């Protein structure tokens, strides 16, 4: 938006706003509401469909105009319902027409109490009805997926949901069909709306037409509390409000950080919370008593045992971190294990290179890019979903989006952004080096874990020494379920003398741990996460966990080893901050955390990439699907989102092999073969194929694909 100002009058008030400002925003700046339904700038250009925002505008035609479709002009005079009987009458009429076929569902509708239609009817609408004919009816509600219920009678056909499907998520599944008053929202053949971002239509819907099945009848807006926190499911760290009632999480909605998530959430972050109350949730420590048996023990007993195991293995301890620990948790563990016990090794979730700091930009910079290059071959949407939405936004605004490195394109661009999504990224050092050489504006590295960066920084800040990993491992300390599920960690556990595991669920560590301490979810912790931008964000405890917070028992353990450790996240953070975050105080990690200033340029040795297969085969990239993992497995409504047995192919590779989209294919590699369905992907470069880890079986890195 330009800095040139425009002066206009709204309801007698003189308003000055930048040129290009929409009329609805300009009125808001003057403290005046222009009511809207279909207007939502994040969905693209305004459509002017609902006619709720009709105002009297001069100069202009004698009839009222849709304010949402207009931008400010010098000398414009706008009269809203506040001062114009014409506007008031028109807005009243719109509401009357909407209510003509709208069912009187308020008493049983989840939207009631947080419903724009209710609110606007109260403010601008008729007080009673003149409609004495049968309303048009539909079967209702219809589950358009296990997550979302559709009530076509309530739908006011504002088309926000279909525009989201078409123009934001670009999944092309949610549509309007038929014409006129018989128009209805639908999916093809009533198949489930299955895509990564479907839940956003629930928040977009201004009435109770699209509602969450999880939240159905679970609470009224005046009975709930919203706790502002940050999603901990992936390294984006979307800002959310977790809704609770009676001490339980009932739903998760967006808190809209303008630069991080722009108000969108992926379905995993939005719908995965009931695993906190899964049947196999661990609430008490478990101690192995016989070869395969476990016994629930008290915390005192558990800590005694932990102390014993730690002392026995002093000097020969290896710690495995998940990357989902908070900064404070990781630091606390580090102080105890590194400082107090000379832990000699750590399997860190991943290294994130400091070289990225020189190219630190907010995620919203992707939308403003003229060239976006995505390297690394792993699907962005499975790793950091919201980044995929930013990339789509960039493309819609005219950016070139490339999936192979075109050095000239990046060099000649003015606002190029590089994204590394996949293995072999050297923690971002590779993409940072490219950014430096080619003069890109910003670079992103997509880690595999939600707080990988924060955990590494916090771990490093605890001690200065560079320990050497012991062999054999006396004690393996496994923190968190992601680490517990890691095959490399399992392998280490096989060879270790003893294992302590921190886990949320029974059975994940039972096969190979000696002591299991119950863990918590990000929804149950206070602390901080560092997201993939390098932004430090604040987690708030939404519900009290069934087991003590990790900081509490780590502090107790630390006491036994003479390590001074506070059980309060604020104090722990301040310790880390001194070294890692420039002394930023805990209390200043704000509600909408800013992006810390970029650091200096660092150089790192870049390892050469491995040779691509030259035997005519395709290079196989295995990826971890978004909808996988212990949390997702415990949410029944999310099972339909699990990765399908598919192989993603670039269009040219598919055509060369006579493979059409959706065709069944045979994927072979030295001895094994898997039957999968082909899915043509536009975000994939030729020569590479992708399969979700859970369907890739024993396939080798080079595969042959042919029609089945």
């Amino acid at each position, binding site marked *: 938006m330009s800095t040139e100002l425009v002066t206009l009058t709204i309801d007698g008030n003189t308003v000055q706003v930048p040129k290009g400002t929409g009329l609805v925003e300009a009125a808001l700046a003057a403290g005046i509401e222009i009511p809207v339904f279909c207007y939502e700038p994040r969905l693209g250009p305004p459509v002017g469909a609902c006619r709720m925002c009709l105002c009297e505008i001069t100069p202009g035609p004698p009839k009222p105009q849709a304010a949402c479709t207009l931008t400010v002009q010098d000398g414009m005079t706008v009269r809203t319902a506040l001062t114009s009987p014409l506007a008031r009458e028109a807005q009243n009429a719109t509401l009357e027409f909407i209510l003509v076929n709208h069912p009187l569902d308020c008493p049983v509708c989840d939207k009631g109490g947080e419903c724009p239609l209710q609110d606007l009817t109260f403010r601008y609408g008729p007080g009673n009805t003149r409609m004495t004919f049968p309303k048009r009816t539909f079967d209702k509600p219809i589950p358009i997926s296990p997550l979302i219920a559709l009530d076509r009678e309530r739908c006011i056909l504002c088309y926000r949901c279909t525009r989201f499907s078409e123009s934001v998520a670009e*999944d092309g599944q949610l*549509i309007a069909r*038929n014409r006129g008053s018989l128009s209805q929202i639908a999916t*093809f053949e009533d198949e489930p709306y299955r895509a990564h971002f479907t839940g956003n239509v629930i928040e977009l819907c201004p009435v109770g037409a699209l509602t969450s099945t999880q939240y159905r009848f679970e609470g009224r807006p005046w009975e709930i509390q919203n706790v502002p926190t940050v999603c901990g499911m992936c390294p984006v760290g979307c800002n959310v409000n977790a809704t609770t009632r009676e001490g339980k999480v009932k739903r998760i909605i967006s808190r809209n950080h303008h630069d991080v998530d722009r108000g969108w959430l992926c379905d995993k972050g939005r719908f995965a919370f009931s695993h906190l109350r899964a049947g196999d949730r661990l609430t008490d420590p478990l101690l192995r008593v016989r070869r395969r048996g476990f016994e629930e023990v008290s915390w005192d007993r558990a800590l005694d045992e932990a102390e014993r195991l730690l002392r026995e293995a002093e000097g020969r301890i290896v710690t495995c971190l998940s990357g989902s620990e908070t900064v404070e948790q990781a630091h606390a563990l580090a102080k105890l294990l590194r400082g107090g016990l000379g832990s000699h090794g750590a399997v860190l979730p991943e290294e994130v290179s400091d070289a990225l700091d020189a190219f630190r930009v907010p995620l919203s910079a992707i939308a403003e890019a003229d060239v976006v290059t995505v390297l690394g071959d792993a699907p962005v949407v499975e790793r950091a979903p919201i980044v995929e939405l930013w990339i789509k936004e960039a493309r819609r605004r005219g950016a070139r989006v490339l999936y192979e490195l075109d050095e000239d394109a990046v060099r000649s661009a003015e606002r190029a952004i590089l994204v590394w999504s996949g293995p072999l990224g050297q923690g971002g050092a590779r993409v940072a080096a490219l950014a430096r050489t080619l003069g890109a504006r910003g670079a992103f590295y997509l880690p595999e874990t939600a707080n990988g960066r924060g955990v590494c920084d916090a771990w490093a800040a605890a001690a200065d020494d560079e320990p050497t990993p012991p062999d054999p491992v006396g004690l393996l300390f496994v923190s968190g379920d992601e680490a517990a599920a890691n095959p490399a960690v399992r392998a280490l556990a096989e060879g270790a003398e003893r294992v302590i595991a921190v886990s949320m669920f029974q059975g994940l560590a039972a096969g190979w741990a000696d002591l299991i301490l119950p863990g918590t979810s990000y929804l149950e912790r206070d602390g901080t996460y560092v997201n993939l931008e390098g932004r430090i964000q604040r987690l708030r405890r939404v519900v009290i966990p069934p087991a003590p917070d990790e900081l509490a028992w780590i502090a107790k353990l630390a006491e036994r080893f003479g390590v001074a450790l506070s059980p309060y996240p604020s104090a722990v953070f301040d310790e880390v901050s001194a070294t890692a975050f420039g002394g930023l105080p805990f209390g200043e990690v704000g509600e909408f955390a800013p992006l810390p200033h970029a650091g200096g340029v660092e150089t790192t040795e870049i390892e050469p990439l491995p040779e691509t297969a030259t035997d005519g085969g395709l290079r196989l990239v295995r990826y971890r699907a978004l909808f996988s993992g212990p949390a997702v497995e415990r949410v029944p409504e999310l099972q339909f989102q699990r990765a399908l047995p598919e192989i993603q192919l670039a269009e040219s590779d598919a055509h060369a092999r006579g493979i059409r989209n959706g065709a069944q294919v045979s994927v072979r590699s030295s001895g094994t073969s898997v039957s999968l369905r082909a899915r043509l992907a536009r975000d994939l470069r030729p020569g590479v194929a992708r399969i979700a880890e859970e369907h890739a079986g024993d396939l080798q890195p080079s595969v042959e694909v042919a029609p089945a």
Partner: protein
Amino acid sequence: MNAYYDEVQELKAQYPDWRSAALPALRLAQERHGYLSADALRECADALGTTPAFCEAVASFYDMFHLRPVGRRLVEVCTNVSCALAGAQQVLEALEHELGVAAGGTTDDGEITLRTVECLGGCGWATIVALDHTYRTHVGPDDVPAIVEEIRGG
């Protein structure tokens, strides 16, 4: 079938933007399948390079696309103002009687669908009856038996 796929690629090439081929592609799919069944929509989506949902959204907007089965032959009677003034309702009722089906429906043998339509743009030659989209003009109730015999024969 590849023939359809290839034909749609040719259609797409006629337009600066491939999406403009949606209507002709849907028309072709309807001709092939008799009506726009789910399979027809899938085939069309595949050839256009979009989703079946998108094809359904577009097709369901237009009166000439049938998303439910229709007869092999289509008999459409305009009952808008000028044709109504010329007695279109009587023509329609005569056809209902002669064909043995209420307007909107298909004969039991699945051969003929009869329906009313809005203004066909033949107002001065009322009443217009479109037989498989070819206009018969100046149709009166007395013309109906011959018309039905012709449709049944052909």
